[in-house]
Each structure stands twice: as structure tokens, then as C-alpha cells.
């Protein structure tokens, strides 16, 4: 039971129509904050590829052009950052991770997304399959801007947004779960916003 903060009344109470869409501890924002651990990388599209790997082998790789030729989906989703902002009703364009994984003859219980700049989040494979994750390259009807992860980022909206890796370049299929970048610095291995799984042990 938290002690009452003397004199704090709070003005962030959520309107009823948003209440069931905001996980605990989150507040809605209308802008789109940027949080990254390092500089924004800029890989030219002709050099860009997206790969699925396993045990050091590249199972399949797509160029930017090849990715664009795959069936894309428009996704409307609420996103939730571990730093406590949520943005409701964001609209994305991207290729479902199912579509990509369908083209490789291997799977694994876990994935590690890898990115320009060295960033990595770890995820259970079942959280990036079954229509739950995309490689997104469009935001709000426009190409995804570099500071928000363009040319392409992972989009896994049901988990805290650090799992939706910016500047994503591929997925490594793994037999085991091991911490990615933020996870190795004490953030939660799974990151369910509805359970407030912000930090290890939450």
C-alpha cells in the first residue's frame, strides 16, 4: 500500500473511453517521444537487407525491394513505452513476421532481433508469430522516419515498446532465451505492459 503524497491530487486520470486501453502506470501522449541508446544509424536502402538466421547461418535474406514486394498490412495499434507514455491508435504499414518466417524451413522457441547500431531485444517466438508482430516501414501514411526506427523497425505492440526494435535488420532463431540489450541492463525479459513488467523481477 503506497503512502499518500501530501498535497498530490493528480490530474492525469484517464477518461473512461481510454481507461481500458491504458495499461497500469501509463499515461497517454499525443506526440511521439524518441528514446535510443545511441546515434541514429542511416543504412542506405540499396545496402539494406532483412535476414533470418539460425546458429550463425543465414536461412533467408530479403533486399529492401524484395521486402516491399511481399504482402504488406496496415496495422492500428496502441503502443506502450516502459518510460510510461502510451500512444493510442497508431497506424503502421509493414510485413507480418509470419510472412517472413513462412519462407524459412526452421523455427525455434525464441528470437533475438538484431539491428543497425547493435541493439537487440529478445522475444519468445510465439510473441512474434500468429499475427502479433511486423517489420514496419510505414507510419501514419508516410515512410518511417529514421529517428523512429526507419527504414524499418520491428513492431510488437502487445509488449513494451523497447521490444519493437528500431533499425531492425533481422531475426535470429534460438533454442534458448538470453537477454538482449536493455534486458541485460535490468529490464524485464518479457515486458508485458499489462503486468507492468518493466524491470527484472517485476
Amino acid at each position, binding site marked *: 500500500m503506497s503512502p499518500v503524497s501530501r498535497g*498530490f491530487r*493528480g490530474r492525469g486520470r484517464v477518461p473512461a473511453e481510454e481507461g481500458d486501453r491504458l495499461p497500469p*502506470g501509463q499515461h497517454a501522449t499525443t506526440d511521439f517521444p524518441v528514446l535510443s541508446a545511441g546515434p541514429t544509424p542511416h543504412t542506405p536502402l540499396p545496402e539494406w537487407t532483412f535476414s533470418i538466421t539460425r546458429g550463425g547461418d543465414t536461412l533467408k535474406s530479403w533486399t529492401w525491394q524484395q521486402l516491399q514486394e511481399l504482402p504488406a498490412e496496415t496495422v492500428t495499434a496502441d503502443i506502450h513505452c516502459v518510460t510510461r*507514455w502510451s500512444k493510442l491508435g497508431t497506424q503502421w504499414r509493414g510485413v507480418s513476421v509470419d510472412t517472413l518466417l513462412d519462407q524459412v524451413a526452421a523455427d525455434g522457441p525464441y528470437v533475438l532481433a538484431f539491428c543497425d547500431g547493435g541493439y537487440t531485444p529478445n522475444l519468445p517466438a510465439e510473441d512474434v508469430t500468429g499475427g502479433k508482430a511486423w517489420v514496419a516501414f510505414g507510419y501514419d501514411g508516410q515512410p518511417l522516419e529514421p529517428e523512429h526506427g526507419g527504414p524499418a523497425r520491428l513492431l510488437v505492440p502487445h509488449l513494451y515498446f523497447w521490444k519493437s526494435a528500431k533499425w531492425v535488420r533481422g531475426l535470429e532463431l534460438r533454442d534458448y532465451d538470453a537477454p538482449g540489450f536493455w534486458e541485460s541492463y535490468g529490464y524485464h525479459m518479457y515486458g508485458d505492459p499489462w503486468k507492468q513488467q518493466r524491470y*527484472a523481477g517485476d
Partner: protein
Amino acid sequence: METTAVRRRLSWQAAAVTSVDRETASVVTIELEPPDWPGHRAGQHLDVRLTAEDGYAAERSYSIASAPGEPPAITVERLENGEVSPYLTEELRVGDELELRGPIGGYFVWEPADDSPLMLIAGGSGVVPLRSMLRHRLRTGGDVPARLLYSSRTLPDVIYRGELGQYGDGVRVICTLTRSQPPGWTGYSGRVNAAMLTEIAWPASRHPLAFICGPTSFVEAVAENLIALGYPPQRVKTERFGGT
């Protein structure tokens, strides 16, 4: 990447507010005495939770302003239309309790064992975690050469003004004022740009380690400029704040 094997659960605890010091018209530093503080590293942050009488709670993260070994302190800037920062900067008093948990984060962290020249670049209240690093360097008797380039709107907006010259030998603090400069101002004027960084930043040949903290647009621009000056991306650590 190194991983830490065992991690303690971060529990909420009620810390006593032991001092509230005004830094500028809109910024205060709050020193805290949590019952169980494991110690922090320079650059880490902590979470604060406020609870209203009806149980409504609001949480925010703040960079830790004090050096490792000092009691945890946060420096908070009042944000217009903010919910937590107006309370912390105007309502909170010595003797109150403040719920917190931490420390959190391990990437935007400086350790004295790293002997690279330090290039610290701050916009506004982004100076807070960098101040922790400079105090840590001073307290540990470090001799790593360090430069802090600190951008503020006006002179009265400069946080930690009284101590910026007291970080010891080998530290150079360079301020730039973007909006207005007082008569006789001898620092830089205007936003941090490529020309300013070319003059002030350690050359890449010295293998510097850079920490940049500030609003998103500031951090993006400064990071791009350091990359253009030859800094490897993995030697440019950033912390951005924006939104609410």
C-alpha cells in the same frame, strides 16, 4: 555483451526528503534518504511514484544527480502541463516522503576505470546525469580529461551554476546560451552546431567517450555531428527525453 547474473528485485520504498534546493526558477534538486539504497552508478536513473488520496498514482523516471557514494538526489525541471514535475518542484518539502525505486539503467553509465577522454554534452536539464559523472570523477580522484559542453536558453536557466567551475583539474566546462546572453558574456552563443563541436569536442583520434543528454532534437543533432567528426557510434551514448 556482459550480462549481470543475479539481480535484486527493484522494490518501492518511501524515502525521506532531506533537502530541496532551488537551482533555477523552474528547477529543484531533491536529496533523498531511502531506507535501503544499494548504491548507484553515475548516469543511472530512478523511478518516483506519487499517490493521491483516492489511490490514483503517477510514476516518472528521473536521472540521478548525485555521485555514487552520495545519497541519491534528483534534479527536476517543472514542465508546463506536467503532472509530477509541478508537484516535485513546488509542493514537495523537507520532511515529506517520496516513494521511489532504483537505481535503473546500465548503458548510459560512466565508470572511472574507463580512461578515455570524456566528452559530455548537455541540453537543458540533460546536464543532470552528466553532473553525476563529473562529481564521481572528482570524488574518486580521477584524472581523465573531461569536457562538458552545456547548452541553456539563458544564464538564469543554467543548472548547477555555482559548481560548474569546481569539478577539479582536467575538467573544462563550456556553456552556450541559445536565447539571450548577458552583457559581457564570454561563453558561446547559439545552439550547439558542427562548428562549435569541431572547436570543443575531443578529436576522434584521442578515442573519446561521449555522453549526450537532452531533448530529442538536440541529441539527434549533436550525435550526428559527432559521427561526422569521426566518433564511432558505439562511443556515443545518448539519453533523450521528450514528450510528457
